[in-house]
């Protein structure tokens, strides 16, 4: 399949990006150094072009009913201007995707979905739209810049009259940004470093990107690739769809019980409720290696006797801890923090400890 180019492709190449295929798109994976980019976001700020993400608008009188039916979290408690993390359950016990739900008004919502799942999610939501909600896929017309890091608010303030320091986490505002209209300023992110995500129409994207780079200059802003995005999210223990959760893992196994609300009905909610009552047999955990080594996706997880008990779903070195960290599914009996497990790395069993996530402490 041919990779889709994001609108600012050439700009990233000019900035020195190495471009790779990800989720069907050609994306910047690294500009200078994964570690430098990672620490730049943890300590200062950086900008990610994540325009590959998908955006669906759901409008009309049936909008909330549709969202309530297809997602696990309770969108009826959302106020306008607020955002909710949620997931789309399938009818076989697994997860179609994880997503953000934005409420603009009682009859207007936006869903932000993973790039690799845009087609799948679109078909899934459409096929479950028995509520006559109006759906629009805006993914191809929308750019998304994640400006992340403790200095992001200070750096962006000159571009907007919205008081960024007063925006609660998981809230958003729509307005003029860098002089361009209808920009969504969202206090969200996938790094745990604080900051904002800026949704802008393709036609203004290049100017808005440049304005952010200029405003961020004195704060040390750098463009950041997907490589550092992955290590940043892993240090926070955030799930990556396709690695840590997928069509076969249940929200409860994947640690998403906190966004699975049985105060309402949703697709497969009866089954998932039963699971909650009887308990799940495996759980997604975070672990830290006690020996030198780096866990990677698909490495076997073993018990003390060398029996395979699971698989690593995400793994890396933590640039902040300088230790191997990862996530993976283990039998529920071994899922408590402090449990000892082993990661098989090139036929050596390296000792690891199950830990609570996030792996690192940040202000978020």
């Amino acid at each position: 399949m041919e990779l889709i180019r994001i609108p600012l492709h050439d700009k990233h190449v000019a900035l020195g990006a190495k471009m790779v295929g990800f989720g069907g798109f050609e994306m910047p994976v690294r500009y200078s150094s994964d570690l430098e980019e990672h620490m730049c976001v943890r300590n200062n700020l950086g900008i990610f072009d994540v325009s590959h993400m998908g955006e669906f608008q759901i409008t009309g009188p049936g909008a909330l009913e549709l969202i309530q039916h297809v997602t696990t979290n309770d969108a009826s408690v959302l106020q306008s201007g607020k955002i909710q993390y949620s997931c789309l359950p399938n009818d076989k016990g697994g997860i179609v995707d994880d997503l953000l739900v934005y409420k603009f008004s009682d009859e207007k919502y936006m869903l932000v979905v993973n790039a690799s799942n845009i087609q799948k999610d679109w078909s899934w939501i459409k096929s479950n739209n028995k509520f006559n909600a109006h759906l629009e896929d805006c993914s191809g017309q929308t750019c998304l810049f994640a400006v992340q890091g403790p200095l992001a608010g200070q750096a962006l303030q000159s571009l907007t009259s919205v008081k960024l320091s007063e925006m609660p986490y998981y809230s958003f505002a729509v307005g003029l940004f860098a002089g361009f209209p209808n920009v969504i300023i969202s206090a969200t992110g996938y790094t745990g470093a604080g900051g904002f995500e800026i949704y802008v129409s393709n036609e203004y994207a290049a100017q808005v990107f440049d304005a952010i780079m200029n405003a961020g200059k004195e704060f040390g802003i750098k463009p950041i690739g997907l490589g550092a995005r992955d290590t940043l999210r892993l240090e926070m223990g955030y799930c990556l769809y396709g690695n840590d959760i997928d069509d076969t893992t249940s929200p409860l196994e994947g640690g998403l019980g906190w966004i699975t609300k049985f105060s309402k009905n949703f697709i497969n909610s009866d089954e998932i409720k039963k699971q909650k009552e009887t308990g799940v047999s495996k759980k997604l955990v975070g672990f830290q290696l006690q020996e030198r080594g780096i866990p990677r996706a698909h490495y076997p997880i073993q018990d003390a006797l060398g029996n395979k008990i699971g698989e690593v779903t995400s793994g890396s070195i933590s640039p902040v801890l300088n230790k191997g960290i990862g996530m993976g599914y283990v039998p529920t009996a071994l899922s408590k923090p402090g449990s000892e497990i082993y990661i098989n790395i090139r036929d050596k069993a390296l000792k690891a400890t199950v830990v609570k996530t996030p792996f690192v402490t940040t202000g978020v």
Partner: protein
Amino acid sequence: MNFPSGLKYTKEHEWIKVEGDTATIGITDFAQKELGDIVYMDVNSLGKNLKQDEIFGTVEAVKTVSDLFIPASGEIIEFNNKLNSTPELVNNDPYGEGWIIKIKLSNSSEIENLMSVDTYTQLIGA
């Protein structure tokens, strides 16, 4: 990117510098750049006799992991211990302080079949 002319190269992106019957081995500038930040050199072959193209260790970068293949047969007589605490030397100085192992060559005629700098740079399109 820098590719010294006095070295021989492999298609797996190692370089080897021969001095008498010993040789120093590392990875090329191209390899370190492709790998990204190197955070761990896992080399457990010290004292072993390996045949040409056998694996002598593994290089772990933040985002990827890659095996290291020995360019010529021989005994591994030294590992660059500095890489235990500062593996980034391989990124910063791949042909100098970032060398990885030294070997005692057991068949120096193998060196003839390795790539010259011209052939190697052609291979990687540099």
